[in-house]
């Protein structure tokens, strides 16, 4: 997987590589549209280890709460603190400013369990 390439999970999270071994995680445009206006984002603490597809946080919109599942396993090394005061970034800029976690990946092969951009586009069209 090359720098800035993006992969998607069935739960509508994305992951993309930044520096060596570090990956950003967030939710997709499709997910933010389904959730509606996000008002709180609660994420697990920095230092927490997580397995692929396990719950690492909660995203609360005006009408409902959704769990955030990490599309890749590893250690949380940073959370996006901007989201505490500006949760609307998740709606307005889900793929960039609305990123949620930075993860130090333990097994890069897990990327192969995720969808490419094209596969994900096909996936959401069938929903």
């Amino acid at each position, binding site marked *: 997987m090359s720098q800035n390439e993006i992969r998607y999970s069935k739960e509508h999270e994305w992951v993309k590589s930044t520096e060596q071994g570090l990956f950003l995680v967030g939710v997709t445009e499709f997910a933010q549209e389904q959730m*509606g*206006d996000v*008002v709180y984002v609660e994420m697990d603490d920095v230092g927490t280890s997580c397995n692929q597809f396990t719950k690492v946080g*909660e995203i609360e919109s*005006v*009408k409902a*709460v959704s769990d955030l599942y990490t599309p890749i396993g590893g250690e949380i090394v940073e959370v996006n603190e901007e989201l505490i005061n500006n949760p*609307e970034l998740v*709606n307005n800029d889900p793929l960039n400013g609305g990123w949620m976690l930075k993860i130090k990946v333990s097994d890069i092969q897990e990327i192969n369990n995720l969808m490419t951009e094209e596969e994900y586009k096909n996936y959401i069209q069938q929903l």
Partner: protein
Amino acid sequence: MGKRTTLYNNYLHKAKIVDFHGWDLPIQFSGIINEVNSVRSNVGIFDVSHMGRMNCKGESVKEFLNYVLTGDLLNLEINQASYMFLSNEHCGIIDDLVAYKIDENEIMIVCNASNKEQVLAVLKSYRNLNSNFENIIIDDFTDASGMIAVQGPMSQEIMCKLFNIDELNIRRFRFTQIPCEGEDVLISRTGYTGENGFEIIASTKLSSKFWDKLIYLGAIPCGLGSRDVLRIEAGLSLHGNDISSEINPKEAQLERFVTNSEETLYKQAWDNIQNTPTKKMLIGFIIKGRGIPRINNSIFLNGESIGYVTSGTFSPTLNLSIGLGYVTKKLDPDSNIEVEIREKKFDATVTKLPFLRR
């Protein structure tokens, strides 16, 4: 496919549509927060055509309705509307509704969409029980009409523009009928948002025209999502959540809408209720911290479970989370309670309703 209101095609491609008690209705247009802010600061419009509308006509219509409704219809004036309940014999709230006195022999009822069939069935069963009322006509005209709520501080201005009039002087809970394209359009100063606002009832054809013109004039289309947030901020109950046929008006803190002192179906039950302490009562509360209360979350006082949440939301206007619920202990405003949201207890403060004063 669910039932669709006459305005469905006006907004089909501009809204996210959901099923609401068998109706396909917009949950949101531009986003719940934007819609709430628009109603609080400007003007928003809601398709409320799904709500039940029926005319009750006949010489003894006031006496008939007085038997089952909690409002005082004998003293209601022509062109006055009043919020009240359809009560069962135990004083349980079958539905909450607004009765409009059209003239001495005609009263219009607007009730919840989800309860319309039951309201009709209850009214008809009482009509058939008493020969004095056998000539009363109950005409459900919901599908032959549309209803639009125009809500917000700029509602008066936009209504004047819509009807091309200089002023619209209607007091709260009064209504008027304005001739428009060969029909009488009913305009009431009512709503479910806590803001100044109006509701328009017209033919299906005119309603569709009004919707488009209101948007052209600058009104923001709003969905069920923002409607729910606005009514919670205003401390207004929703039937099915905060009130039901298992809840009486005293428990719901709505005694003031039982004003009928005549001989009624529920009189004995109501006298008993008034003379005994209630087992549970509705409260409003504000959550401290970043949690949003949801239906059926438990409420605690000093570690003891004392109740449950019936409505909850994030309030964009107050920028905090608020809720309504029932508790078995009498709590003063500012009492500290806890609300358990997804296995985590949040501190909360009992708050006098409404959350938002206008």
